[in-house]
């Protein structure tokens, strides 16, 4: 999971009109992050597609994936992690098509099953260590 070898890859941007991980990011800010990332990594950037503001809609993403390009630059991984089953399915689909999934905000690229598995493990660790009760429970066990 790194952002090497993105040089001259043709990638289409993908932004959302829904909340992302509980926060609202204006579309121009999402585009700004994506464009800046593309410039820094010498990516041949194609104008972003905007996902519909309808829960569980990934219509625009599916269209982008059926186009001729090397993959997608998402603004953030949490655009698709809102639906965990879809997340796994769509990344598998991207890998099978030999395309790249690039997440600008997190500076992560997924291009293989190995990278996808590493990402899924990272989410598991995040679920454990970011829970509000995690620190409370540790303190309770140590200082009981």
């Amino acid at each position, binding site marked *: 999971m*790194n952002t090497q070898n993105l040089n001259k890859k043709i990638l289409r941007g993908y932004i959302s009109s829904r909340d992302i991980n509980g926060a609202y990011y204006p579309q121009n800010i999402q585009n700004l992050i994506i464009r800046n990332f593309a410039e820094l990594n010498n990516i041949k950037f194609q104008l972003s597609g905007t996902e519909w503001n309808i829960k569980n809609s990934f219509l625009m993403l599916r269209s982008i994936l059926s186009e001729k390009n090397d993959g997608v630059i998402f603004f953030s991984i949490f655009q698709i992690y809102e639906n965990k089953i879809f997340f796994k399915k769509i990344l598998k689909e991207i890998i099978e098509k030999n395309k790249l999934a690039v997440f600008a905000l997190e500076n992560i690229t997924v291009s293989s099953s190995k990278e996808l598995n590493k990402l899924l493990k990272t989410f598991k*660790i*995040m679920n454990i*260590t970011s829970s509000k009760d995690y620190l409370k429970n540790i303190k309770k066990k140590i200082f009981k």
Partner: protein
Amino acid sequence: MNKKFLLDFRKKGFFIGKLNLIEKVKLDEIKKKIVNILKKKLKKNVNLENFHNIIEGKYLNSIRLEVFNKINKNKFNLEYYNMLSRFIEPIVGSENVIQKKINLSIQLPKDDTSLLPVHSDTWAGDSPFEIVIWLPLVDSKKTQSMFILPRDSRNFINFHKFTFKRNSEIMKKIKKDIQFINIKYGEVLVFSQNLPHGNVVNTEKKTRWSFNARVKSLMSPYSQKNLLDFFEIIELKPATEFGLLYEYPKFK
């Protein structure tokens, strides 16, 4: 690992360690790489300590960003960790995360545009379980360097009891207890960012160049800065990997 490091960290919340020959050779290579980036960009011979003689303050940040982006390509964070792991692992453990991009600071003499007033990273979304690995690229002393409020100082011990309205009040309160770090090229400063720290206008005659990076144990609690957006896993140990995959059987 020198036991003195551990004792210093427990007592003061920071320590300074000296790089061995192999670590120093790696650091020399990194420094050379930076000098070459600057030489190519400025088409001049570059001496980092005297950088203020060839650059105007208004161009400083764009040059810093260019060096930062170039040096951080190809997993520099892992190179940085591996070079300094001897100083990190006795303090936080061996299954760690490090920030994705290593910060680079440049502090020109008399420059008041790159100051970091007294702060603790935990006040701005960092986990209290993190440490900072601060590595100078030149000898740094007094105001050219940075200051820390030591853990064993009266003001730190009582810090949680104070109420402040302005940043300047914090500095006023802790001024007599802060310690400026005198550190040589080839040494590393490891400190807990729970300790208030910062810098002031560099009144020395030399420019300071330094790296800094945050490291924490993989499974210790996170704050706002999390895996994916800020930290990268250095190595997932087999027991953790097994634990993550484990599923309980069903009992009736």
